[in-house]
């Protein structure tokens, strides 16, 4: 399976609030960031939590500027996200 994204790509996280388990933290939803590295390939936690078969897919370290998450702050937050949570960021 080919990874949808690679380090350096600008991505935007999904905004949907799923009903079940997810590993996309609420504070990081609908935010624009940059992939800094790939953290391997793993079954999607959302599917495993529901007892579904899940093929390994890319998990990325995505770096966000605090200002893009919280509207303030000069630090950065790196969140580890399955590619399912990400869309290409067309705003740049």
């Amino acid at each position: 399976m080919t990874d949808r994204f690679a380090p350096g790509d600008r991505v935007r996280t999904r905004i949907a609030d799923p009903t079940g388990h997810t590993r996309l933290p609420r504070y990081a939803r609908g935010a624009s960031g940059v992939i800094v590295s790939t953290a391997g390939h793993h079954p999607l936690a959302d599917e495993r939590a529901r007892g579904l078969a899940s093929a390994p897919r890319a998990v990325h370290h995505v770096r966000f500027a605090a200002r893009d998450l919280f509207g303030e702050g000069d630090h950065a937050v790196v969140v580890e996200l399955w590619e399912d949570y990400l869309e290409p960021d067309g705003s740049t």
Partner: protein
Amino acid sequence: MSGDHRSAPAAAQVRHVEALLEARGLLAPGEIDERIDALAAGGTPAHGAALVARAWVDPAFRERLLADGNAAIAELGFSMGGALQEQKLTVVANDEDEHHVIVCTLCSCYPIALLGPSPGWYKSEAYRSRVVREPRAVLAGFGLELPASTRITVWDASAESRYMVLPLRPEGTADVTEDELAGLVTRKGLIGTAAV
């Protein structure tokens, strides 16, 4: 289970489910405790400190540790394989311009094999919710006042990796032995809530 949370409703639910699974023969008595013990077996911050000291005295090891943590820690006899599957280890190195700090905002993911059981504050809602939002103030609360010019990067262990911070080697330690250097490294330093 680690810690005393017998009154927590979730703990009562877990005990109930555990008893049902045992009654149906799906789980051997005490099996969960055994698995937890296996996961935590031998885990202590001394492991993380030994890795940091080696990285300080051996630049080539430092590079290997940052490039592929799992392979590098095997050189010192450590492993991230205590859980059901081996966890990926990502080591992030502090430098003069950037300071790293680790959190798990969703639960309490932590590199137990290298740092031992996590401290209570690491699992607290206050730390987990505040450090992503205002790390400079949280670190100041730990007594770590960083220069305004030092950028802070917070790593949220939201998926499969576990993280460890490689602190800056303290000044004035050029003649200190590797063992003595390891003795300078604290658990907070390995999490990023202390300088070393």
